[in-house]
């Protein structure tokens, strides 16, 4: 048993922190706050210049052959600093999937520019009527000569307005079994018939509705075999992150301590109790996350442990951002950016942002089901008639 931090990994952490001091400038933060887009091209290209986009890929794929744990450190530090890396992280989920399931042509066309920070990808899974039940997607793709015609609508296509492609799950066979009738496509956002509308959210983050009206794509847009869409989704799900939620909690603790000193509330027992609980939840979240990371480096996959880490940390984030905002009293209602907002509004911002964390990348309810069945061995829960 060894809980020590790997020296080489900690050196990398220090390098990331140094990078953040230099590149996460007030200008970048202001641009992100104004646009609501958690992606910033200048910042993104600076990450690319360090070779950190796809750094865990093998050298023959243009990566640095780093440990996956290094990518966790990268995301952790970015999250702890509040850096705009949503675009990068979604792009890497898709790129990682293409690296394994894409054609040589797709890998050639996509991976290089992704690595160089020139190309952004966006996820097109959910639809107005397909949220957690992703496999019920109704967006249609119909054969047209050598290509396909796509018609439908996707929800929460975040940063599609900056992205070059949408990784789109479409139904190619309405007669087949629910999960068997799906196929994955990479749809260029420049294609005729593609359009989008912004959707604004509680934290100020902007997402999109994307519309596909008879969009033509060549067959080279198809990822994986026809009817294999669900397998591709499952593959991509394994690359969802998780470790950064503990870092978000760290950010919360840091903001609270800063505020308590500024407000002279270091001795307030009600605050201290809440803070003590939040710190404890942060430590537990950190260790559950580290365990999942460690398991991924062994022959075991760590997928269930990753789900456990995600649910625990994000539920803690919702609870303790709320409780610690409460601890600031009535001033807590002052919006971020207003004068006198506690910790410059950071606490309220974290509280707002926390609300999405238990939803994306698998809702807490879906993931608790995964833990119940695959970790505890409980009988499969009864589902609606649409289940496979």
């Amino acid at each position: 048993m060894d809980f020590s931090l790997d020296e080489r990994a900690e050196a990398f952490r220090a390098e990331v922190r140094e990078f953040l001091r230099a590149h996460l400038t007030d200008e970048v933060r202001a641009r992100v706050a104004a646009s609501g887009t958690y992606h910033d091209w200048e910042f993104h290209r600076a990450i690319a210049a360090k070779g950190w986009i796809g750094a865990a890929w093998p050298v023959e794929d243009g990566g640095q052959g780093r440990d996956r744990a290094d990518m966790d450190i990268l995301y952790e530090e970015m999250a702890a600093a509040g850096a705009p890396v949503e675009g990068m992280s979604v792009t890497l989920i898709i790129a990682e999937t293409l690296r394994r399931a894409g054609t040589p042509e797709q890998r050639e066309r996509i991976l290089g520019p992704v690595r160089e920070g020139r190309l952004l990808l966006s996820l097109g899974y959910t639809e107005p009527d397909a949220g957690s039940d992703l496999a019920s997607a109704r967006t249609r793709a119909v054969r047209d000569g050598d290509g396909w015609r796509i018609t439908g609508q996707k929800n929460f296509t975040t940063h599609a307005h900056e992205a070059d492609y949408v990784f789109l799950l479409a139904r190619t066979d309405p007669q087949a079994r629910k999960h068997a009738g799906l196929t994955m496509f990479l749809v260029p956002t420049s294609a005729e018939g593609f359009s989008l509308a912004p959707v604004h959210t509680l934290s100020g983050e902007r997402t999109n509705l994307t519309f596909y009206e008879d969009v033509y794509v060549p067959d080279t847009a198809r990822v994986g075999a026809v009817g294999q869409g669900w397998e591709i989704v499952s593959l991509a799900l394994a690359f969802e992150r998780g470790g950064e939620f503990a870092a978000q909690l760290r950010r919360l603790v840091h903001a609270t301590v800063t505020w308590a000193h500024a407000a002279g509330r270091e001795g307030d027992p009600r605050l201290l109790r809440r803070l003590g609980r939040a710190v404890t939840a942060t430590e537990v979240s950190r260790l559950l996350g580290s365990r999942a990371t460690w398991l991924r480096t062994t022959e075991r996959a760590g997928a269930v442990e990753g789900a456990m880490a995600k649910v625990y940390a994000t539920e803690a984030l919702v609870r303790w951002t709320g409780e610690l905002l409460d601890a600031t009293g009535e001033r807590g209602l002052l919006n971020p950016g207003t004068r006198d907002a506690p910790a410059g509004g950071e606490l309220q911002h974290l509280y707002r942002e926390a609300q999405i964390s238990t939803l994306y990348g698998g809702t807490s309810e879906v993931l608790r089901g995964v833990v119940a069945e695959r970790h505890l061995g409980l009988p499969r829960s009864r589902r609606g008639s649409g289940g496979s």
Partner: protein
Amino acid sequence: MDLELTPDQRDVATAFARVLARDSSIDRVRAAEDAGFDPALWKTLTGMGVLDIAAGQEDASGFVELALVAEEAGRRLACVPLVEAAVAARLLAETGTTAGDGIVVLAPRPAEGGVAVLTPAGAVADAVVALDGDELVLAHGPAGAPPGDLGFLAAADRTLRGADVDRRVLASGDRAHALWRDARDRWRLATAAACAGMAAQALDIAVRYATERHQFGVPIGSFQAIAHPLADVAMAGDGARLVAREAAWRHDHGLASWRAAAAVAFAHAAETAVRAGELCLHVHGGYGYTLEYDAQLYLRRAKATRLLAGDPDALWEEIGAVTIGGDR
């Protein structure tokens, strides 16, 4: 990071797990319930050298192994003062004190008015190590009368002064406080491990029942209203084991952060054990409320263990204060 046990650690854990499963079976626990102490089990465990595991003077190590044994003891609701005696043994070794044969336990809270209030195993121990004002004392004396406690821990008050008490001052002033704090923090981390074991076993029992028990024509574990709380306890429970083991590892590696880690470990693991016990009872429905089922035993031991450290809010407050920089 490598969470795999070393072969030596695995040997220790397996050996004690086997003995505890056999000699602290639920029947044995129930037989020892009134006394809160199982002398035969104590003899077996001390015979296996359980008190030597963490008593080493030449290095700091041993608490990782002690935590592994405590996990198993917690899992089996062992009616022995394993952690209290192991931590006391370490303190006696550090101060070069010979206490003779017999059971010596640490009182996990400072004494009040010369009395170590509700000391675990106070009803059976030959001597108690306690912080009495500014003195750290070893007090041999008559075992206290057990008032009866929630966790069948043989908890009893121990008088540290008086004619029938052989009181030895091990240290006084700052040194007494420092030694006592070491002992208390070690008690916290090892007891956290015991709580993690309790939580794991209570969860296992609940999961088994939820799989076998049918209502409305299906196993109740197929209802999300049952399954999801169990999943929550599984996450908190794995977290409890991790924080306890990490605190022990930090201790054994001489990292200054071990104290804060021990406080966090105890706060979280004790809360989780209580939650697991309560959930285990609840999942059993009305049966869980009856004495015939084991859920109540886990609930009682967990709640009592948490209370041994006093009001849990005081600990959350302490952790908050340490975080904010006002170390107490």
